[in-house]
């Protein structure tokens, strides 16, 4: 590793996965095959792959929503953000965030205060009393982001959280997420099938193969890259992704 990563080297590993495999049922094909991954504290990792390659499965394993078939996985309890906001429709935005605090054991009085602060953080200070259906898709995802921050866990898993949003909103949420990541120092694993999104957000971009899912390539995205460098890197990663997809053509 180069010298710019000394900070990362000093940090403790947040997540360690070795030889992880997963199949759904004894006769089902391998979805994940021998996945190895180490994520440092405070790192922003973008996990890139074609649809159906097993990205969600990997994240679900990390979150403890599925059991691995083989391999080892050392992960702290993680916060999770899904593609659909998955807010509870019977609760207001504020109450959705408060529920996460309550399930974490935060006392009643602090809950209201903290939830308000978290909504402020995602620029939704005025929308606390709204129900999810009264919010736009982007606002819902920001409430979901506030809710996952309310879990106060070092590791934040995000499964294509912006995939269903329009491009303008998505661009904005990229800025928002980056700002919050810098401010809160969370470790983030961000799943996407969008190369530009991966390069935009990740310090590290991991490429997954399909059937079975493995991590086949890795790029570091330096902090100093300008728009042209990023476009170039995106091109390179796209080429690799397409080669990976073409392998399945026969």
């Amino acid at each position: 590793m180069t010298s710019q990563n000394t900070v990362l080297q000093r940090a403790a590993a947040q997540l360690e996965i070795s030889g992880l495999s997963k199949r759904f049922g004894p006769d089902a094909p391998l979805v994940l095959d021998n996945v190895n991954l180490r994520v440092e504290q405070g790192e922003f990792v973008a996990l890139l792959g074609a649809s159906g390659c097993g990205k969600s499965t990997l994240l679900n394993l990390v979150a403890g929503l599925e059991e691995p078939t083989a391999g080892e996985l050392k992960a702290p309890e993680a916060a999770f953000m899904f593609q659909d906001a998955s807010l509870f429709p019977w609760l207001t935005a504020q109450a959705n965030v408060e529920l996460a605090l309550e399930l974490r054991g935060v006392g009643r009085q602090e809950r209201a205060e903290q939830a308000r602060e978290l909504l402020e953080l995602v620029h939704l200070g005025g929308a606390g009393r709204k129900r999810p259906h009264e919010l736009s898709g982007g606002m819902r995802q920001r409430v979901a982001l506030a809710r996952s921050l309310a879990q106060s866990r070092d590791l934040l898993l995000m499964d294509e959280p912006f995939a269903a949003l329009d491009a303008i909103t998505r661009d904005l949420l990229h800025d928002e997420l980056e700002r919050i990541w810098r401010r809160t120092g969370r470790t983030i694993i961000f799943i996407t099938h969008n190369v530009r999104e991966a390069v935009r957000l990740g310090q590290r971009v991991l490429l997954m193969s399909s059937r079975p899912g493995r991590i086949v390539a890795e790029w570091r995205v330096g902090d100093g890259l300008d728009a042209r460098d990023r476009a170039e890197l995106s091109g390179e990663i796209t080429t690799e992704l397409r080669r990976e997809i073409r392998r399945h053509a026969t």
Partner: protein
Amino acid sequence: MRLDTDSGDDVAQLEAGLDALQAEQPGRSAVRPAIGKALLPVLALAAIVYVWQMYIWIVQPRPDILPGPADVAAALGSLWGDGAAQETILTSLERGVLGFLIAAVIATPAGLLLSQHKGLRAAFGPLISGLQVLPSVAWVPAAIIWFGLTDATVYFVVLMGAVPSIINGLISGVDQVPPQFLRVGHVLGANRWQQATRIILPAALPGYIGGLKQGWAFSWRSLMAAEIITVGGSMGFGLGSLLQQGRDLSDMAIVVSAILLILAIGIVIELLVFAPVERRLLRGRGLLKAGAA
């Protein structure tokens, strides 16, 4: 241009603008549809009374076979005038509501238990579904043998009618809870109890309310059946008893009046109790557009 060099304030402003553009516009006034909604059933009712009256005029059936609207209105008026209508309505409503509440108190924990426990559900599920299909009138003879001509007979029949449908409503409400909600609950760190009370129950509420509504319908029907069959003893005199009395006296105007009263109570409870609760619930979850039924 690199967006991430924008200051936080810029992002906040941009977002505020987008939020304003994208958020749902507040619904327009719902007054016109509401008037239309009230008007149409009234018109339908008027049409039925009109056809009824035409039939009386043209065919001229014997009044003791089919009385005309005016005869029935007169019968209703005299029932109301001497207080018989109010008394029977109150008696029946009191039993129906009390029986329904007891049924809800029994069926709610039972339904929760069955929805959470696979073995119990496999064992009792079919039985309960069967009971829901069984007309609760079938319990009347047994109830009379067990409890005699007392109110206990009536309540027993009401419970046998209402409990299974409330249980089934709750179970199907729980079944329809999106699995994603459970995953979110798990990720948020909910334990089993919190999962049940904070996520499954509220998520299942629409199905549960549906079950309660059906439970009320079954309560009311069972009650009327029980009141028609079992008259006398220490039993109060309800709408079903009035109906039966009309038949005994061969007074068709009273029979029709009693039927209309039974129908009206059912409609009033639906309109005043269940419809508003259901509407509020669904609207709060965005499952109903403002102004829709």
